[in-house]
């Protein structure tokens, strides 16, 4: 019998390890004004939130500012976090995603120009790791917002599809197909770079 899973499409990948129960406890303390508990949450999630903001923004340099804004916004509305509705990281990721798209919509698209127009293979058929990453960064930046968000939240940060669906306000099936379409486009971009150096 075929195994049915609710994981994102593509190859199985180890999801990032997170301590959701510990996060919920810290969030509860932080909501009562415990700044040290909130600091612990910032330290736990800062790398992931900065990375998330960077992948959603046209200019990666804005990632840290957006992440900082997201954490400050989270601090102010910690009382609205409900662990029964999803993980703390999912809640925080939703804030960061919305902040990133706000910034994105206020600015004209540009900084992709900082990246060379095409990856320069180091020689031979296979792209170097750096070239492949550059090609994928460009392909990700070129995706429609909804596909990029679905892919980044579900595949890069390993959020359950149901949580991504709640963040995006669409059915789980829609998230699944958006993430699958994004993955196909990224694979295609990589294949193109390999075939047409």
């Amino acid at each position, binding site marked *: 019998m075929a195994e049915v899973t609710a994981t994102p499409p593509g190859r199985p990948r180890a999801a990032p390890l997170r301590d959701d129960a510990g996060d919920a406890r810290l969030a509860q303390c932080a909501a009562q004004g415990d700044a040290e508990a909130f600091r612990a949450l910032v330290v736990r999630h*800062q790398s992931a939130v900065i990375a998330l903001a960077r992948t959603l923004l046209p200019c990666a340099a804005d990632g840290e500012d957006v992440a900082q804004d997201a954490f400050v916004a989270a601090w*102010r509305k910690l009382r609205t976090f409900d662990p029964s509705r999803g993980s703390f990281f999912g809640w925080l990721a939703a804030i960061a995603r919305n902040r990133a798209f706000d910034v994105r919509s206020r600015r004209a698209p540009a900084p992709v120009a900082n990246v060379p127009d095409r990856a320069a293979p180091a020689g031979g058929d296979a792209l170097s790791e750096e070239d492949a990453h550059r090609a994928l960064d460009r392909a990700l930046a070129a995706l429609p917002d909804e596909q990029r968000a679905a892919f980044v939240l579900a595949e890069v940060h390993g959020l359950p599809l149901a949580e991504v669906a709640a963040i995006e306000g669409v059915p789980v099936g829609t998230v699944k197909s958006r993430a699958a379409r994004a993955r196909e486009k990224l694979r295609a971009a990589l294949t193109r770079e390999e075939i047409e150096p």
Partner: protein
Amino acid sequence: MKPDDRTDAALDDWIGARRAAAPSAGFADRVISTADARTPRWLPFAAVAAAVAVAALRTAAALAVFVAR
């Protein structure tokens, strides 16, 4: 390695690299100080005042019911 496997491996490798980004030094401190600076100083007092007001109203209501009886 087949080309498809190589593509998937490169994609997975990139996904792993984009999952985390090192924050600059003092990031958590900046977040905490900004959050602290943006928290209105009157908020704790307002919360206490609201709690006292609610308790007073409840007492008054209970007293009114008692006197009416």
